[in-house]
Structure formats: structure tokens, C-alpha cells
């Protein structure tokens, strides 16, 4: 029983080789994914504490480890290194193996690297909470955490290259370009940034430039390509239609590769940087319109005529939502880089709204979509409840929309008021306070969504030897979990 429309027929051999490939990636992919979901919960907790402190500064105010200056960087680093990177690596290992038609190499090594990465996040988070963090955004973890991320990143690169070199598919699909490029870029970015900022290779203004070169590229040249690659795979895969245009894919990939690297300095507009560095950053950011539009056209045109599938397929709904927000957040980000725009929005809540629209609304939603697709395939099980997936989708979607719209609106007026010297600062603080409370409410919505997701993941893992029949779509009715488990236990007893 399947609700998806039938696509062109595949040979049985292809189906079987897919089973073998999915099997080969089971342990590493599950390790990276499960870790990322656990970090997502910790990240949400740190986010809620930070957000509540903004409108109730006394909340947990007596605990040194949870002061705002520590818990906010911990939130950022956990959702970046813990959630985003681990989810991205899990997805890229599974996806590259599939697209290359080879079994995932070195499963034990890649599983070990997941544990190394986890240790890095634990050590780094505790160090920042204990007050040993640096003030360099995205690199708050102390220097001794660097090997925990650099070595796995190199390992993932090696596995990725090996898969590509031994690939049995003749054609290189667009997702593979992005995945390969992202794994090459990450170690370059991270190792260069760590050496430059921590070991005194560059100092002063150059250090700040390096910081934002890394901070911006970690999003644009590492997590963005992986999410775009995933959407490029999942949308045609679930709908069974070809990607609209190969030429657009090609143009989009190379323009991203050329322009994104320059964009980081727009974070320092108004700072003591040589003016030309910012000018180049602004142009790099604006040129990002080109790759973003190519992706938007390709994904939209691939979906055209089959939008009704969003009603049934969880994977597709998350992925298309994320892909849509990629367009929105990127357009916003390009315009935000302009000097005239920055005069108003820099140092306001607007930037924070934008950052979350990008990393959550775009990247995380696509990762959720990918996990809804990959988990059943590597566990040989089905999602236990369509209702939990609905809670996840609506909590996340409504949460991020009210978060993004609320903070961008508040930030715009906050900036306008701050530019007017006759308005007292405290009046501005009073003005944005309701929006800060709205932020906490939106955050609570997303946190509830993450709990629902974590529960789904726990269920699909804990009963992974039992195969339910049929995919879990939004329209699927499953028996309640408790009854389902009891029935299963009885079956096992009978079988014994």
C-alpha cells in the first residue's frame, strides 16, 4: 500500500543494490543522526534559557554557569557543532553512498569519528559554561577542542573522496558536487580559522575578518551546500520527477562557489575595516541572488503540478518548506548586506531573526525532511505516528515563522529608533520587550516540536527489528503506540 504515484520502473538489481548500500551505512548514519537529535534537545534548552533571560533578566541569574554571556554561546555552538554539523554529516554519508552506488567505506572509522565529534561538543560546551570560552563567534570553544572537529572533518572528506573515486554511477548528479565541495571546504575553513584566530597568525582587525570569514562561510559553504544537495535529491526522489534544469544547477553551484566566500565582511560594516573589504563583501552578498534564484527555479519547477503531495509526504513537506525559506532568507540576507540597510538593522534583533530563518527555517527543516526519509531506510522500520510528525512540523513551522517575522519587524523599528538620538534608550528596550516574549513563545513551540521528533526517533530506534507495513504519511493511521508494542510482544512470544 503506497500513496506515492508510480514512477518509471526500476530493475530488481537496482532495488537490491540500494538495500545493500543502505545497510552498509546503518551504524555510522544512525550514530551521527541520533547524536544530532540529542544535541538538538540540549540546544533548545540553552536557547530557552537565553531567550527567557532577555525579558526576565533575573531568571537563573544567581548561577554563574548560566549567565547570558555563557549560555548564549553554548546555544549557538551546540546547535551548530552538535545539531547542524552532525545532522549534515549523517545525511551526506548516506546520500553520497547512494549517489555513487557504492557501500559506505570504513563504517567503524566513521562511527568512531562521530564519537570523537561528540566528545568535542561536550568538552567545548562545558568549557564555555565554565567560563573558558573565547569571544570569537562560532569559535567560542577553546583551542584544545579543535582536533575533535578537524580530524573527523578530514575523515569525512576522505570517505567522501573515496566514494566518489570508486563510484559506479556514470553520471555525477548535482547533489554530489555540493556534497564533495562542502566536505572540502569545511576542513579548510575550520583549520584556517582556528590557526589564524587562536595562534596569533593574524591579529586585530584581520582577526575579526578571519572570524567572520569563517562564521559566514561555515553557514554558506558548509551547511548550505549540504542542505541544498539534500533538497536536490529528495524533491525529485519523492515526487519521481526529473530536476527541472541541469544548466541552472550548474550555474547555481559555480556561482555559489565563487561568490559566497567573499560575503563574510558584511558582518563588520561600520567597523574599522579598510572600506574596500566591506565593499567586496557587499557585492559578494548581492551576487548570491544568482545561485539562490537558480535553486528556487529548479525546486519550484520540479514541484510544479505535484504540490498536492505536500499534503501526504512528511519528507517532502519539510524539504519544500526549507527550500522555500532558503529563497526567502537568502534574499533577505543579500539585501541586509547593503550599507544603507545595515545602518538600520546592524546590532538589532533583525540580524538574529535572519540568522534563525536561515539556519532553522532553511537548513534544519531540510535536515528534518532528510531524517524522515533516511531513518526508516537505515532502521528497516516505519515512523510510529503521523500525529507526532504533524506536531513536529507545525511546531517548527509556525515557531520559526513567528520568530523570524516578529524579530525582523521588531529589529527594523529598533534600529530606526536607535538612529534617532532624541529617543531614550530605555524606551527602545520597552518597545522590543513584547517581541522578546514572542520569541520565547515561538522557541517553546519549536522545543515542543523537537521533543515530538525525539520521541519519534526513540520509537523508531527502539523497535527497529519490527517492520510495520507501509510508509508513515500525514494521512496514515497507526494504532496507539502502547497497543502496538503489546501486540508486538505477543507476536514475539508466539513466535518463540
Amino acid at each position, binding site marked *: 500500500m503506497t500513496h506515492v504515484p508510480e*514512477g518509471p520502473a526500476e530493475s530488481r538489481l537496482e532495488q537490491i543494490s540500494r538495500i545493500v548500500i543502505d545497510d552498509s551505512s546503518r551504524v555510522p548514519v544512525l550514530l551521527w543522526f541520533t547524536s544530532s537529535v540529542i544535541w538538538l534537545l540540549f540546544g533548545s534548552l540553552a536557547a530557552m534559557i537565553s531567550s527567557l533571560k532577555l525579558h526576565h533578566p533575573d531568571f537563573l541569574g544567581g548561577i554563574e554557569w548560566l549567565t547570558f554571556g555563557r549560555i548564549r554561546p553554548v546555544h549557538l555552538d551546540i546547535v551548530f557543532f552538535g545539531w547542524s554539523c552532525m545532522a549534515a554529516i549523517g545525511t551526506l554519508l548516506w546520500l553520497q553512498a547512494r549517489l555513487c552506488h557504492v557501500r559506505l567505506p570504513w563504517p567503524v572509522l566513521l562511527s568512531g569519528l562521530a564519537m570523537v565529534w561528540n566528545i568535542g561538543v561536550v568538552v567545548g560546551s562545558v568549557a564555555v559554561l565554565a567560563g573558558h570560552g573565547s569571544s570569537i563567534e562560532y569559535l567560542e570553544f577553546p583551542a584544545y577542542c579543535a582536533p575533535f572537529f578537524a580530524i573527523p572533518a578530514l575523515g569525512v572528506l576522505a570517505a567522501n573522496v573515496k566514494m566518489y573515486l570508486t563510484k559506479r554511477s556514470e*553520471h555525477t548528479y548535482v547533489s554530489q558536487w555540493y556534497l564533495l565541495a562542502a566536505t572540502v571546504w569545511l576542513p579548510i575553513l575550520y583549520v584556517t580559522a582556528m590557526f589564524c584566530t587562536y595562534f596569533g597568525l593574524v591579529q586585530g582587525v584581520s582577526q575579526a575578518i578571519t572570524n567572520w570569514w569563517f562564521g559566514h562561510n561555515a553557514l554558506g559553504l558548509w551547511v548550505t551546500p549540504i542542505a541544498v544537495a539534500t533538497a536536490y535529491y529528495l524533491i525529485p*526522489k519523492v515526487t519521481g520527477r526529473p530536476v527541472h*534544469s541541469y*544548466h541552472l*544547477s550548474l550555474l547555481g553551484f559555480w556561482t555559489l562557489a565563487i561568490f559566497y566566500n567573499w560575503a563574510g565582511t558584511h558582518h563588520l560594516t561600520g567597523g574599522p575595516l579598510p572600506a574596500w573589504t*566591506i565593499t567586496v563583501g557587499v557585492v559578494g552578498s*548581492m551576487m548570491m541572488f544568482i545561485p539562490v534564484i*537558480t535553486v528556487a527555479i529548479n525546486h519550484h519547477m520540479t514541484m510544479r503540478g505535484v504540490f498536492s503531495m505536500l499534503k501526504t509526504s512528511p519528507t517532502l513537506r519539510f524539504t519544500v518548506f526549507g527550500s522555500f525559506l532558503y529563497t526567502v532568507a537568502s534574499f533577505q540576507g543579500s539585501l541586509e548586506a547593503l550599507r544603507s540597510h545595515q545602518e538600520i538593522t546592524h546590532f538589532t534583533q533583525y540580524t538574529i531573526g535572519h540568522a534563525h530563518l536561515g539556519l532553522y527555517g532553511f537548513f534544519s527543516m531540510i535536515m528534518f525532511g532528510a531524517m524522515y526519509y533516511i531513518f526508516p531506510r537505515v532502521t528497516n522500520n516505519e515512523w510510529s505516528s503521523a500525529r507526532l510528525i504533524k506536531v513536529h512540523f507545525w511546531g517548527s513551522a509556525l515557531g520559526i515563522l513567528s520568530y523570524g517575522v516578529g524579530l525582523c519587524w521588531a529589529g527594523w523599528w529598533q534600529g530606526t529608533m536607535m538612529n534617532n538620538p532624541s529617543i531614550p534608550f530605555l524606551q527602545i528596550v520597552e518597545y522590543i520587550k513584547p517581541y522578546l516574549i514572542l520569541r520565547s513563545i515561538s522557541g517553546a513551540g519549536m522545543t515542543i516540536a523537537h521533543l515530538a521528533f525525539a520521541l519519534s526517533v526513540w520509537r523508531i530506534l527502539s523497535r527497529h527489528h519490527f517492520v510495520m507495513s507501509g510508509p508513515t504519511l500525514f494521512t496514515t493511521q497507526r494504532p496507539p503506540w502502547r497497543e502496538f508494542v503489546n501486540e508486538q510482544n505477543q507476536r514475539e512470544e508466539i513466535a518463540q
Partner: protein
Amino acid sequence: MSAPHSDNLPDRILKMHEQAVREMVEPRDGISPTPVTFLLLCFFFTAWGGYYIADNPGAWSGMEYNEKPSAAPAGPAVAVDPMLMGKEIFGACTQCHQADGKGVAATYPPLVASEYVTGDERRLTAILLNGINGPFLVNGATYSSEMPKWRDYFEDDELAAVMTYIRNSWGNQAPPVSKDTVAKVRAELAGQPNPWTAGSLAEFSAVAAAKAKGETK
């Protein structure tokens, strides 16, 4: 599980892996033509990028922080209100003399209604430049602390501004101090870096007064 080479695996195995079997074909690339409007848009952004770089080059210099440097030097220097500038600099003085200028009894002398503040501007300048060691007498009370010298920390116009500020705040009223006065006194005291005492300061102001008299004659 080893890779099967046969196409005749039992259906049971495929059933176990229903998730992987029920999929659509692997994604393919379409070859729809690129929309012309999009290509025009690419040209537009490229042209805009070139224009923006040419318009905001910051002289392509590592030392230029203004994206349009030619606009910066135009126009006369803006006159600064010495009372505003002085108020800002006075932040350095509040630790001892307090924000209300009343000082601390027996330790830090008041600036309010003090003859040292509203009186001879050259003497006041001399105190700020060199500092002074107590004890000394202000408005009939003895103060015993030491004031540091500020000559290395502030420019002439800054010292002039802070003096103008304290001479015209909290009910004080005295003529503003000009930056030339500070420059003159600084030059006079060039070879004399030691902090004043009550005695040496009185001597300086007597000599200064005599000089001033001489000049008027």
C-alpha cells in the same frame, strides 16, 4: 550482508526492506532551457556589482576606512561645544571630585565655589598639567590627597574644555579657558614636571601675576 549478484532473491528479503524498495527512481537531470529573464537578471546583478565596486572602492587602500574618501575632507571642521566635550572628559575627574563637583570632605577638595576653579585660569591649568600634592587649603578646609598630572593624557583643547566645563557648572561662573592658554602654560612648564605643593603653587601664581602685571604695563 554481501552484495547479491542474482536477480532471484526471495521476496521475503525484499519485503524486509520495503522502505528501500518502494522508492521512486533515483533523481535525474532535466534539460529545460534557462529562462531568458533569468539570464537578463544575471547581467543586471553583474553590472550592479561592477557599479557598486567602482562607486565605493575606499581608494583600494588598507588605510582608508571611508568607502567614498573624496567626500570626507570637504567642508570646514565642525566646531565642538567645549561644555559638551568638557562634560565627557570630566568623567575622568568624578572618581575623586564626584559627579556633583563637591569632592570628599578632608580628602578631595570641592570644585563648587572654589577660588582655585573660578579664579586665575593659568593657576588652574598648571594644577591640571602637573598635579598637586596635599595638604593644602580650599575654602578654609584642609585636604590631604594627591592629584595626578594629566599633561600626558589630554590635548590642549581637551584640558581647555574640561576647565571651561567646571568653571561653568554647579553654579560656578567664570570665563571659558582657551586652548591657547593651555598651550602657553604647557610650554612654560615644559622643564618642570614635578607635582605642585601648596607652597610652589603660590609661588608660581605670584610670579604669574607679576608677569601679567608687567605685560599690562
